[in-house]
């Protein structure tokens, strides 16, 4: 049955890592001399204590992690991280109820970036850094977890599970598992540091630069200003953000090969990357056209804000430099479509993933061709390798579950009285880990604090499922999971 001891053991080790990150914020707080010193210190203490308790409980665990254990572990780790991560907000009184605090942290760890804090700017630096750090940890968390942490605790038999949990449709398409954790984190660090340096050069303060860089490379979207990057009103910063968001949405394995091994051609020929780029381009052109037609924008501004918004939604970052609520409604449809597709598989982005998008569209094309040529055997080929019918069914099942979950969330929000556009985009935003919503009641630039408490719990669950590719979490709720067979 479930290897509880091992789960405790691993959980204990991981909570220690979380505590280490919290300690980093504590140091910042020490220098800033603000009122978050005590809450952070208590949090670190509690987390370390619980971590030690867990390690104690997990003593002498056998090192065999079954498939079930792995599914359970991933979900439990995420929930535990969110629970302990919400302590600083609660203890410091920056968020005054548990639902909001948990939602905020879960939104961070899943790199969603939806916030319940109405006024970010007044908050102390230590807590702000912690808020950004949750996203940075969450960005590559699942990858790091499956390829670096788990193998160190158990044998190498975890690959099967990792292939499912990390999002790729077919492990063959995604060479990412063969990449070492070191290379992956190296690239992540290079992107973050590069982004921070660029921001710093273009006139951002050091603290802001680091925060924005972390949330952008994690495609999270938490900002240290209420107006997000719009606060700076600086095209150089906007374009830096666009470039780094775009690259964070590309498969890290391919990006690594292109940047450090010079295999740029390989990247440019990749079907997923092409789809991702084409989507960016088409969506931008449409929005630019609408902005020029219905809003008073100069051409350069229209290009800048629409590109920013498209890349932000497509990579599921959710930063904004302009209030998209003021735009024509059709632009919302385009942005919703971007939210749905998300970035490339194997990146920090969420969503349905462009790889799945490419395959789903090919399946659709084949179905139509099949009407004309009933006896044709039509392959679904992506980058030269065939996606077999079992893989196609899994993908369609994923698509269906994705929509069913969105629909349930939509339904519940309609019940509690949120307006229709908002309900729809909130559901999509959570399932794809984007962050902002589009609509009349809650605009993309506003916080979600007015939503009722229990809706936030539901949305937290939706975000977690979205981040962990749905099935990983869903399987735990099936009776078969708990049966002894």
């Amino acid at each position: 049955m479930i290897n509880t001891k091992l789960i405790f053991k691993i959980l204990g080790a991981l909570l220690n890592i979380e505590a280490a990150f919290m300690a980093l914020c504590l140091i910042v707080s020490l220098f800033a001399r603000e009122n978050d010193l005590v809450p952070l210190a208590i949090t670190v203490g509690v987390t370390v204590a619980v971590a030690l308790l867990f390690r104690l409980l997990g003593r002498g665990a056998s090192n065999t992690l079954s498939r079930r254990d792995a599914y359970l572990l991933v979900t439990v780790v995420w929930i535990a991280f969110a629970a302990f991560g919400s302590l600083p907000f609660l203890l410091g009184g920056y968020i005054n109820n548990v639902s909001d605090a948990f939602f905020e942290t879960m939104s961070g760890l899943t790199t969603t970036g939806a916030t319940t804090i109405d006024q970010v700017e007044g908050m102390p630096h230590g807590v702000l850094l912690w808020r950004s750090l949750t996203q940075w940890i969450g960005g590559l968390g699942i990858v790091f977890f499956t390829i670096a942490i788990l193998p160190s605790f158990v044998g190498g038999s975890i690959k099967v599970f990792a292939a499912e949990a990390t999002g790729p449709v077919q492990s063959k398409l995604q060479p990412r598992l063969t990449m070492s954790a070191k290379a992956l984190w190296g690239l992540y660090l290079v992107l973050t540091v590069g982004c921070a340096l660029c921001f710093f050069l273009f006139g951002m303060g050091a603290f802001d630069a680091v925060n924005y860089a972390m949330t952008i490379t994690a495609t999270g979207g938490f900002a240290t200003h209420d107006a997000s990057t719009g606060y700076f009103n600086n095209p150089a910063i906007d374009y830096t953000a666009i470039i780094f968001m775009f690259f964070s949405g590309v498969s890290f394995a391919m990006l690594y090969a292109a940047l450090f091994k010079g295999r740029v051609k390989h990247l440019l020929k990749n079907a997923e990357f092409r789809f991702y780029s084409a989507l960016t381009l088409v969506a931008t052109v449409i929005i630019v056209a609408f902005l020029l037609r219905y809003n008073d924008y100069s051409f350069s501004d229209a290009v800048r804000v629409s590109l920013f918004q498209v890349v932000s939604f497509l990579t599921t970052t959710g930063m904004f430099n302009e209030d998209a609520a003021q735009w024509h409604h059709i632009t919302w449809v385009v942005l919703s479509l971007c939210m749905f597709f998300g970035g490339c598989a194997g990146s920090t982005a969420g969503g349905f993933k462009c790889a799945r998008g490419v395959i789903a569209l090919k399946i659709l094309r084949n179905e139509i061709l099949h009407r004309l040529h009933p006896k044709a055997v039509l392959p679904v080929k992506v980058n030269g390798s065939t996606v077999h019918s079992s893989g196609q069914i899994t993908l369609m099942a994923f698509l269906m579950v994705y929509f069913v979950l969105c629909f349930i969330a939509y339904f519940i929000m309609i019940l509690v009285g949120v307006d229709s556009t908002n309900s729809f985009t909130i559901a999509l935003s959570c399932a794809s880990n984007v962050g902002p919503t589009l609509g009349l009641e809650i605009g993309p630039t506003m916080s979600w604090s007015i939503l009722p408490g229990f809706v936030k719990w539901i949305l937290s669950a939706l975000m977690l499922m979205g981040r962990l590719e749905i099935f990983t979490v869903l399987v735990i709720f099936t009776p078969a999971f708990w049966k002894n067979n």
Partner: protein
Amino acid sequence: MKVIIVGADAIGAHLAELFSKIKQNIVIIDEDEAKLEHIASYCDLLTIKSSSNTPIKSFRDAGVKNADLFISVKRDENLNLSLCVLAKSMGAKQTVARVENPEFTEPQITDAFNRAGISSIIYPDDLAAQDIVSCLQLSWVSQRWDVYDGALTMLGIKMKEPCEVLSRPLKEICNSETPYHVIAIKRGTDTIIPTGNDMLLPNDYVYFMTTKEFIPEMKKIVGKEDYPDVKNVIIVGGGKTAVRVVNRMPKEVKVKIFEANTARCEELNEVIDRDGVMVINADGRSVANLLEENIRQADALVALTGNAEANILTCMTAHELGVRKTVAMIENMDYMSIAGNAEIGTIINKQALTASYIYQLLLKGDVRNIRNLLMVNADVAEFKAREGSRITSKRVCDLNLSRQIELGGLVRDGVGMLVNGNTQIQPGDNVVVFCQDTNISQIEKIFN
């Protein structure tokens, strides 16, 4: 010259027959005694029965030590490769291995094979595919043979009304200015090497020699202007040859492959790596299936199933349905003449192609290229005229060449030109010779 052939299947048997006709010293080795007996019944050669655990003994018996050419054409490509390496190390001068894998024909790989002792690699499916693709490009031609990279071309064409050159003596329609040269005529079962008094008649199968720039004009002369360029091809039978054909086909040509076996359909999708190909899981022999996939819109149908009868009938059906160009692959030599008389555009025989290719290796280095013309049971070959050879001594009409030899054209400094009686062949010219019932080695003498 001593030739050892391993494998008495279709290709091996055909080779044995070909070589024994030109009085070579042939040894054929196989495990199947029945096959050996069958070959020995109509060819003059030595047969050796081997068993898989005594290959060395059978090699020694065959005299591999002083063999000039060792050919391994068994079905197992790995066995062929290793047997060639073995034969080379035991003293065979030249070795040829048959393979089934496109990777093995890559230049670097063949170099590596050379170093290991395998002189040549033959890939029958690919040879057939080259031929099929080249004749689909000229849909109005039954057979096409390019000499010297296309400077000269020999075209085999089935004559049909209306056509301006039919039923008139050749001396009326041809002069030294005409852009073509009629080399041979196949009428019924006879092969005619024409003189000025002969005429071309409807249903004749005529071999023309022409140069590259006159190919469009030839299309007009033989009255085949209404033949379309091939853009849509239907292939029936998704075997290895079909895969090679598809991979060699120009990118703009759309292909549909009919394959009855579902598992093979999936495999085809795996191995075919290009757009514009659709695999249809249906029996291509059924008219209903062909109609469902719009056969009337297809420009060409290529029948490549393993069954010669089915291929012939499918092509005839397609012709009835209005497909202008049909290609049938035929494994059985006995059907060649029937197929030739039926309404089939081009007939492809893998064994014959392979045999021609190997035949070329057997001849001295001066023969660049040779092709066995199955329809007329004759060979065309390209010879290089040597300094002081008989062929360069006089004008062609004064040479008193045998009636069975016809000079088609020559390539001088890379430029193709036709040969007539007044032509003086110069040393260094590459001359195309058509010869019927003649030992190639006799022709070699004229050129040396």
